[in-house]
């Protein structure tokens, strides 16, 4: 049996912090979902498991939901198992899941109840044990019932849950349906397919790994510095498991922390950035260091505009990128005991870098105005 397992698509995410590209980032998630479905068809998967947070919010507009469900309906080969996560949790009053139910074909199955679901109707020798979320936060997981259910060991028993696993990723307040590895192992299923954490886990799943996080197929912050992942899980006759990680994302989020001291280093940075892949990278660049006047000018007039072009989107923090201002430089530039000399020297002596930079800039501006 071949499963395409993914989670945390967060459709409907707005990216309001990325003003100019927010729509593109938002839209990319739909594209990725479409690609995932095509991939599932192409890889001849028997079932698709979406382990929560397909949607960003429990309240979505109807047209968006219909668009998503139409994409899911396109999977031709078997059921699409859709688990409500903590972002798109299900309640009896939920409009979101009503829209889903109204729009979906029969083979798209919402796992909204804590009850075993046999896949016998689809000629699959498997029973699904879902742990759907019913609210955004919960300090208790929903998998408790599974251990108590008698299972047919002839079948493949698969648990699907959404939430944190202590030790795998932080859950500060234990409010994301925390499940211990022990609880998961003791529940008596053959395999756990999980969602919630946006980074896949474990790194390189082997035969013995029976608890799998797929990661998000389309990264959404620099906290998931990968290309977007989904898992192709194949379960053999004697329940052996082969897992293959698929790269699925359109955009990558990267944190660049750079220290530069010269124009040359700036140019190196630019060269590194000007790769073809960068056009798909949302980069948060934090750059610091001290530069000579010329390099400084080059940064502002040349390097930075090019960098901005190089990336799909650049978030820049160059507040710690400074002009190198030395005592000798000040002495050379300004007559001794003149006002600029006194002011700048004072800041140099007192090691007040920020004020020194500001003062120098202001002096230059006043000079330029003359």
């Amino acid at each position, binding site marked *: 049996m071949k499963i395409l397992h993914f989670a945390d698509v967060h459709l409907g995410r*707005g990216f309001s912090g990325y003003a100019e590209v927010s729509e593109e980032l938002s839209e990319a998630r739909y594209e990725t979902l479409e690609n995932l479905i095509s991939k599932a068809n192409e890889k001849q998967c028997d079932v698709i498991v979406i382990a929560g947070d397909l949607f960003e919010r429990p309240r979505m507009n109807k047209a968006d939901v219909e668009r998503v469900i139409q994409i899911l309906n396109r999977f031709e080969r078997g059921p699409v198992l859709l688990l409500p996560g903590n972002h798109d949790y299900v309640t009896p*009053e939920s409009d979101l899941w009503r829209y889903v139910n109204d729009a979906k074909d029969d083979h798209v199955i919402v796992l909204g109840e804590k009850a075993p679901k046999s896949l016998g109707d689809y000629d699959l020798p498997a029973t699904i044990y879902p742990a759907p979320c019913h609210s955004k936060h919960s300090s208790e997981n929903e998998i408790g019932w599974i251990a108590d259910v008698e299972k047919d060991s002839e079948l493949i028993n698969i648990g699907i849950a959404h939430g944190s696993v202590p030790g795998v990723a932080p859950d500060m307040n234990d409010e994301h349906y925390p499940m211990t590895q022990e609880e998961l192992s003791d529940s008596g299923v053959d395999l756990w397919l999980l969602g919630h954490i946006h980074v896949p886990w474990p790194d390189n799943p082997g035969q013995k790994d029976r608890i799998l996080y797929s990661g998000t197929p389309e990264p959404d912050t620099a906290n998931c510095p990968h290309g977007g992942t989904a898992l192709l899980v194949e379960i053999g006759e004697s329940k052996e498991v082969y897992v293959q990680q698929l790269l699925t994302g359109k955009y990558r989020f990267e944190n660049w922390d750079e220290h530069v001291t010269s124009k040359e280093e700036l140019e190196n940075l630019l060269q590194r950035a000007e790769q073809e892949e960068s056009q798909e990278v949302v980069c948060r660049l934090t750059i610091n260091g001290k530069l000579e006047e010329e390099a400084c000018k080059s940064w502002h007039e040349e390097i930075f505009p090019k960098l901005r072009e190089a990336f799909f989107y650049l978030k820049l923090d160059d507040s710690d990128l400074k002009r190198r201002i030395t005592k000798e430089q000040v002495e050379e530039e300004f007559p001794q005991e*003149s*006002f600029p000399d006194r002011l700048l020297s004072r800041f140099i002596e007192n090691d007040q870098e920020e004020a020194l930079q*500001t*003062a120098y800039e*202001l*002096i230059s501006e006043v000079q330029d105005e003359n």
Partner: protein
Amino acid sequence: MKIKSIKLHPFAGIQEKEVNLTDGLNLVLGPNEVGKSTIFHAIHHGLLTSSNLTSRDFDDKMDPFLPIGGDVIRVTLMIYKSDPDTCYEIRKTWRPGLRNGEATLIKPAGTEVNDEDNVQSIIESLIPASPSTVREVMMSRQSGLHEIMERMDQHSEVQQELSDVLRQNVMEAGGMSVDKFREKVESEFKTYFGKWDRDKNYPQKDSSGRDRGVQNPWQQGVGVVLEAWYQKANARKHYDKIISYEEQLDELNSQLEELNAELSEKEQEYSNLSPIQEELQQREVLESKLETIEEKFGRVKEIAKKWPVYEDKIENLTPELEELNEQLDDLAEEQQKAAKKSKIENLKQRVEKLSQLENRIKEARKDLEEAKEITEKDIAELRELKGTIRDLRTTIRASKLKLSVTALQDTEITVSNIDGEEASWEISKGEDLEVEKEGFVTLKTDTLQLTVKSSTDDLESVIEELEAKEEQLKGKLEKLEVKDFEDAVSDNKLYEDYKKRLNQATRQFKDELGDDEYEDLKTKLEEAGDVEGVRELGVIQEERDQLQEKRRELKNELDKMREALSTWKDEYDDDIDNLFSERADLTSSKKEIEGRLEELPDLPEQFDSVKAFNNYLGSLDGSIDDLKEQRGDLREELAELNGGAPQESSDEYEEVVNELTSNFERIKQKAESIAKVKEETTDILAGLEDETYQPLVESFTGWLGEMSDGRFQEVKQDGELPDAFLTPEQTALTFEKLSHGTKDLTALAWKLTASEYFLNDQSSLLVLDDPMVDMDPDRRKQAASALQKFAEEHQVLIFTCHPYYQDVLEVENLIELE
């Protein structure tokens, strides 16, 4: 600005004259009244006085220069900045009357300007300082140069200008205007900190003290910091709103979930219970009927059982009751007897007690009769006698007797004293014995008795009295039949006791008897006879009570049975068969109802009545309605909440908040750096202001040193003018205290200094009127050398009538007037 030539045509006494000047030192030399001052005034007015004067100004300023008989004053000046070949030509004409003059200026390029105001403003742009400064410093004509000091002191405009020039020198060093920089910093500070309270790190309150946070933000004058803060705070607010929305949503959903669960449970229960309600209703009616029948059946059954029993019992118990009544009568009789018995026993006890008392009296009387009758009086008499005897003996003892005996042969001697106490000794032959006794002693041997008495006169009578008294005492004791006084006392005590006992017994006897007679009582007791065998009153009463209780119970029982029987007989026409037939009827009805009940459903266990069941079903129905209503409310609330649902999830928006927060921190850091620059700028400028006059002092000290041969090398100066001059001995002299010649020298130095500063590196004209007139030859030399030096850079025009100027100065252009 320098002058190439000046032409007067006419001006005062000069009809037409042109004077040419060169760069460097020009000397106008001529005796007084040949026109030196006319030339000076022509230059002065040609440059600085408008031709467009009111009549009054003309009269004040120009009238003195009107040629005698003339009605026009005319001056033409050729001036240049640095190149004598590039001149501006200025032509001015003044005429008496209102604005009758005219002015023309021809620029080097040939452009002609005729408008008076324009002409004057062009001239002012060419002269090195303001007209006032030029007039007071560069063209002062006063002969006493030292007056310049006072004049400058009086003309604040000149001072201000000098001050400005100096400041500018200091403040613009470094290719940047400090003032501009300061303005820039101030404006940046404002741009960043507009409406921001740095101390509180919060928006400033408005004038009414209101908070201007995100609820009521400033609209005008918001600085960069506050702008970023508002962005951050608004984002935070929005974030909190999202969180609150999410929490409320969670809460509402969980409430709805709980409610739905409760509702479906209740609905299930209702649908289980409601179908049996009607049958239970029937059951209730039948059960109530059955209950009535069972009640009746039970009664009939009981009557049937009791009827014959009662009849038997009544028959048996009636004699028992009668017997009880008889027993009670007997007891009443016994009770009366028992009541008498107690009185007799009382009497008996009294008589017994009286008899005892009578015996005690008899005994006491007998004792008394048998006792020696020694009265208190006897004892008193005895006591008196004893006392007298003791006294007498004492008297006798007072006279001591010493008896010495010597034995002539072995003998026994007995000695006795007045009290008759004896002592005996065995004395051997030749042995001595000494005896000492009081008043009286008797010595007795086998052979003789010797009595010795004190020979005092009355002792004899005392002894006699003593003997008499002793005889008396002895007689008394004998009479009383006692051995001694102690026995008498003891017998007396006994006697008195018997007497007391007798009295006591007699009194008790009387008390007990009261008003009765002893003999009467005894008779009464004998008459009462025997009450032995009669029981105690209490015992009889107890038995009577028991019997009475028994009789009451028996009577009650009988009454009850009789009443019941009478009722039953009334009810059933005196025939017990009627009762049996009713019992048969009831049994068959009961069976029928029980049969019907078996077909109906049982009341569920948890209810103890159909009523409780109905109540419960009713309340279940009610709470289902309530829950549905609550659900409706929650759904409405949910719809309302969702109506204002934010577009973002909190997780997503948190990133925005974090970014705006760090943006704010960056901006604040930048802003604080501006504040720091501002602070340091202010601090540095305060120091710089102090240093403003330093160059002036240096220059002045330089000129002064040059002219005083080093005598004054230090000057104290805090403002535009020097305060004091220091001699080499460090004496500080104020300007007034300097010698006349030194004052002139100093004033000249000051004038050169001031000019130099006003000229500010420009090369220009300096006019001096007899600068060395009051100096001695030495000082003249020094002044001349300074002037010579100044003229190297500037055009100097000196007016004088003293030919010696020619000797000390290297004049480049001598203009001699005759």
